[in-house]
Structures are given as structure tokens and as C-alpha cells.
């Protein structure tokens, strides 16, 4: 009679392995069953994008809309900041990136070296950085001169009732409280737009701090993403921060009017942002990298910007590339109707045409 001991005696050393393998196999079987129950389609293409928190609400809405129109094509966008978008698309770990601060020449060269192909910029919408604040007792929209914003972020203006702020807001009872400054702790295109504007209007900022997606801030607390800054300002009295317009609107936060190059105090809106882009629209460079902060024009909002999608020119996976190109074309044409409800300004027709012409050169 063969007992268990006999069986094991002949196969014993392997028994340890088998025992653990069996457990492992059971676990993997369970996992496969679990993952098999998730619905998937015959034309399944999963695209991963990362980057700008500035444009995240738009990508989020687009991804959801597009999935309804083309089931099986998932556009998974993670908002980690424009710096993250640039880095990840340059390393090749994601299929596309989102950024509101265009890549510098050095960054483009690095990406070229890494990936073996260029990264192309395609603007997808226009947006604005607004100064949000939380001052107990002040419910009106404050006017901020450019120097006021520079002074606050340089740490020169420390109290809310400073003359630079007060003179632009006659009749408003500003408290004598300290200003708590909030900026981004991560690499951010929203930061890029903000410091780009500050550099243009404040020589001191330009020399002392400079322009980049991540800078050495003189003062302030860091929040992660537009979400983090908005969250901080919302919960901290006497604070000020800069966020994309949609974050201020969605969270019902007070945001101020900013004085533009023509001297007028303008509130960020579809019209004022579109006005800011008017000059750039006429003279759009071929690689679409352009700054529209501190734009001329009476009705222009001074802290506006394009937001770009970054795609590699010749990616390895052609199926994904084709799906991505189709998504981008949809986004700059039919997808533009999603912009207005989310307070982004849609692209001008000439810009869209120029982009479509450039996209024709991508053969996949």
C-alpha cells in the first residue's frame, strides 16, 4: 500500500517547491479570474498620459467623452504637474504629456537623445492663472497690480493692507493680517505661466528667481498640484495662491482681477483670455511654443497661456500612435465644445488649421 510518506519520500525535495508553487498558482489563478471579469473590448487601446494639472479637468472630460464615442479606447491621464509630463514623456514611460510651460531647447535636446525622436507641442486650449485668496470678511473681487503680485511673491509685501494692494482697492476694508503665500511644490506649468508673467513685469523677479516649472521661491508654502494649492487656500485664512481658473470656479473661491499691460484691471474669462491670444494667433511659430503672458490689448487678461499636448514624433507603438493622433484631432475640433463649460477658451480657427496641417506629416 502506498502511503503518503512513500510518495513524498520519492518526490520530497520538489515537494517544498510544489507546495509553494501551488499556493502561488492558486493566487495567480484567482488574480486572472478577477482581471478577466473586467470588461474589455476587441479594439482595446490604452493610452497613458501625464502632466499638467492646469489642463487636467479638460483631459478628464475629454477622456470620458471619447470613451463613450469610441469604447475600448481609454485615455488615462494622470495629473502630476507639467514638470512630470515633460519628464515622463521624455523618458518614454507615458504615451503623451500635458504641459502649460513649453519645453526649453535643452529639454527638447535631452528628450531627443533619450527617445531617439522629437517631442512635438500641440496646443489644445487656452487657460488662465488667477490669484485666489481667502481673506475673512472680504467677499469682493480684489484688484491686483502686477507689482503687488510680484511684491507678495517676493516677500516684500507682507500684509493685506499694504498700500500697493490698498490703492488699487479703494473702499475695501483690508485687514492688517499677514499674507500667507502658497505656491506649487511640484514642477508646474501653472507656475511657469505665473513666473513668466512676473519676470516680464518685475526685473527683480527676473534676476532673483527666474522662469521655470520649478523655482526657488523666496517665500511661501508648497501645495501639490493645482488641487493642493486650491485646497490650501480654501482652508487657510489670509492666504493667497495661484491656480487655473477652473479650480477657482469649481471650488467657488474668490479670485482677483489683474492689471494688464494697458493698465486695466481685467478678470479672467473666455473673452479676456481669447483677447490675450489674439496677437500670438496671428504669428504662431511652427513649433507652437509661444508665451502670451502680459499681452497687449485693452481687454487682454495678462496671465493667460496655451496648454500643450506633448507627443513623440515617431513612437515605437504605431497602433497607440494612430489612436493618439485620432484623439488629438478630435480634441482640437469636436472636443473644443468641452472647453467653454470648463472655463477654458477654445482655440482660434487659424491655430486649429495650422495644427491639422502639421499633424498630416505624422504618418500613422
Amino acid at each position, binding site marked *: 500500500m502506498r502511503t503518503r510518506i512513500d510518495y513524498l519520500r520519492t518526490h520530497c525535495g520538489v*515537494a517544498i517547491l510544489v507546495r*509553494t508553487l501551488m499556493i502561488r498558482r492558486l*493566487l*495567480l489563478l484567482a*488574480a486572472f479570474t*478577477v482581471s478577466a471579469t473586467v470588461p474589455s473590448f476587441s479594439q482595446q487601446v490604452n493610452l497613458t498620459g501625464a502632466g499638467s494639472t492646469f489642463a487636467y479637468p479638460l483631459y478628464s472630460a475629454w477622456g470620458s467623452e471619447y470613451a463613450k464615442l469610441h469604447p475600448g479606447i481609454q485615455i488615462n491621464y*494622470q495629473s502630476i504637474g507639467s514638470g512630470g509630463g515633460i519628464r515622463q514623456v521624455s523618458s518614454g514611460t507615458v504615451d503623451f504629456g500635458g504641459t502649460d510651460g513649453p519645453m526649453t531647447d535643452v529639454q527638447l535636446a535631452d528628450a531627443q537623445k533619450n527617445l531617439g525622436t522629437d517631442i512635438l507641442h500641440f496646443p489644445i486650449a487656452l487657460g488662465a492663472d488667477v490669484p485666489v485668496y481667502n481673506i475673512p470678511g472680504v467677499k469682493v473681487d480684489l484688484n491686483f497690480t502686477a507689482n503687488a503680485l510680484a511684491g507678495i511673491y517676493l516677500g516684500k509685501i507682507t500684509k493685506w493692507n499694504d498700500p500697493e494692494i490698498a490703492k488699487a482697492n479703494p473702499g475695501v476694508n483690508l485687514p492688517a493680517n499677514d499674507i500667507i503665500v502658497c505656491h506649487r511644490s511640484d514642477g508646474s506649468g501653472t507656475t511657469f505661466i505665473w513666473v513668466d508673467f512676473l519676470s516680464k513685469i518685475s526685473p527683480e523677479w527676473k534676476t532673483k528667481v527666474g522662469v521655470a516649472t520649478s523655482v526657488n521661491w523666496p517665500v511661501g508654502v508648497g501645495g501639490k498640484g493645482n488641487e*493642493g494649492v*486650491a485646497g490650501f487656500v480654501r482652508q487657510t485664512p489670509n492666504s493667497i495662491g495661484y491656480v487655473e481658473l477652473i479650480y477657482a470656479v469649481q471650488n467657488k473661491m474668490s479670485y482677483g482681477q489683474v492689471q494688464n499691460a494697458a493698465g486695466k484691471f481685467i478678470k479672467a474669462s473666455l473673452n479676456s483670455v481669447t483677447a490675450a491670444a489674439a496677437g500670438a494667433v496671428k504669428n504662431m511659430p511652427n513649433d507652437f511654443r509661444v508665451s502670451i503672458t502680459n499681452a497687449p490689448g485693452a481687454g487682454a487678461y495678462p496671465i493667460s497661456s496655451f496648454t500643450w499636448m506633448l507627443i513623440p514624433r515617431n513612437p515605437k507603438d504605431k497602433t497607440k500612435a494612430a489612436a493618439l493622433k485620432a484623439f488629438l484631432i478630435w480634441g482640437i475640433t469636436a472636443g473644443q465644445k468641452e472647453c467653454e463649460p470648463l472655463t477654458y477658451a477654445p482655440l482660434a480657427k487659424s491655430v486649429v488649421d495650422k495644427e491639422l496641417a502639421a499633424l498630416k506629416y505624422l504618418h500613422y
Partner: protein
Amino acid sequence: MSKPYPPTYKKVINVVMLTLTGIAALLVVSVLLFILGYLVWNGARSLNLNFFTKLPVPVGEKGGGMANAILGTVKLLTLASAIGVPIGLLGGIYLAEFGKGPFSFAVRYTTDLLNGVPSIVIGIFVYSLIVLPKLHPSLLARLFPSYFGHFSTFAGGVALGIMMIPIALRSTDDFLRAVPNTLREGGLALGASKAQTIVTVIIPAAMHGIVTGIMLDVARVAGETAPLLFTAFGNVFWSHGWNGPTASLPVVIFNYAISPYTDWHRQAWAAGFVLLSGIFLTNIVARLLVSGKGSRSRSYRLRIPMAALDLFSGKRSRVRS
């Protein structure tokens, strides 16, 4: 007549200090109860069926759920266990049964080292090992190209698996060593080889403890967020298979908690409640299995009753009234 010892001031100090220690213990326990209560109150209120069945909706809209994050966490933990448990188990068997001398000292020291590595460093390691596409891919990357070069559940599972190894190894080692030598000698005396004894006698004897250790291990790793930030990344849709990024409960909690949206905060509480319930349940079941003497207990239950044996030979004795 001299006063009886101890003098009054010592008696006063005695009462004061002992009361303070009581307060300290009370403080610690009340923190736990507070955490639990707050999460239950805030989290359970926000739970509904949608949470478990729906995907997240576009940012700013209300509603949606975390079904993909829950599934993602399950998949990650399954893969982590598949990697961490066999290596830890087999390594523990080596240390307990075969190991002597400098090599096993090195293994023990390295395991302790790996255990102490902050989880974010392990995340960086796996990012540069698996996620980053390289000009000269490693051998594994050439064999399985679809798993390397981007964010994936696979990378997340590997990161968590590496974190699971030290504890699985330690607990297997501890529980196997707690099995008395008399059992090993008995097996050998019957003519079984060492391997046969291990498989048929020792491991079953320590099985409860080993299973406990693994359960505690999984519970610990279930809450890890930092390594997943650079490996599994995140996903707003279902993640298919193992080579795409996936949402996971801890990462979603982190992202939602630091956001400004009240609806997301509500969902973060619910997710925190679900995660913590899972972890606590696992912990409670695991510890109860080992007669409640704590995770470092050396007690075990034998499948083969050995009533007359001195079960704890060679262990430190606890002489306590």
C-alpha cells in the same frame, strides 16, 4: 520609633508616576479608538453601492466610485504575495533548517536592512529597474518587453513584493525555529530525509504561525502608497491585465485628500474606511489565530498532537505571577 519605610514622599511619587503611566496607556488606546471611530463615522456615512461598483467621474463632477482602485489594490496585493511569499518562505526555511555560519548571518542582516529601507526608496529602485525604458534593456526586459518600459501593475506588484519578503522570511524563520527539535529528531529517526521531515512535519506544525505572518505582511503592504506613486502610477479606467498602470486605494486616498473638492474628500474618507477595515480585519483574524500573544509570539498549534512533549525547550521562560 522610626517611620516605616517607604517614606511619604516616595509613596506620593509612587502614586503620581503610576497614575501617569495609566494616563499614557489610556491616551494611546483612546487615539486608536478615536481614529477608528472617526473613520467609521465619516467613512461609513459616505459609503454607498456606487463606491464599490462605479468608476471615477471627470474631475469636478459629483458621484462616481472607486471600483477600479479596489480591484487595483487586490491585483497588486495578489502579485506582491506571489512574489514575496515564496521567496520569504523558502528563505526562512533555509535559515531555520539549513543555515549556519556567515552566510545565514549575512542573509539575516540583509533582510533586516531591506525591512528598514523606506518604502519610497524601494519605489525609486523599481522605477529605475522596470519602469524606465532603457537603451540597453536587461535580459528579462528583452524576454518580456510588454511589462517593462512603462508604468504597470507588474512594477507595482514587484515593489510591494520586495517589501513583503523580509517580514515573510522573519516570521517563517521564527515560527519554524519555535518547533521543538524533538519533532525533527523524531522524523529523522523514522528514516525520513531532512527534506521529508520539513515538508511533512515541521511546516505543518508551524503552519498557523506562518499563515499569520503572511497575513500580517499583506496587511502591512496593503497600505503602502509611496512605492506605488512611481510604479503603478494611476488610472481613471479599469486596468486590464498586468502591464498597464492601475489605480489603487492608498494612492487615490492621497490624491483625493489633498484636493479641494468636497466630494473627493468624502470619497477619500470612504476609501480610508474600506482600506482600514480590510487591514484591521486581517490583523485581528491573524492575531487571534496565534492565541493573541502578539505578532512576535512563538506559540503555535500542532496538527499532530504531541501532548507529552516539552514544547518550549530552549526558549526564554516568562516567570510571571
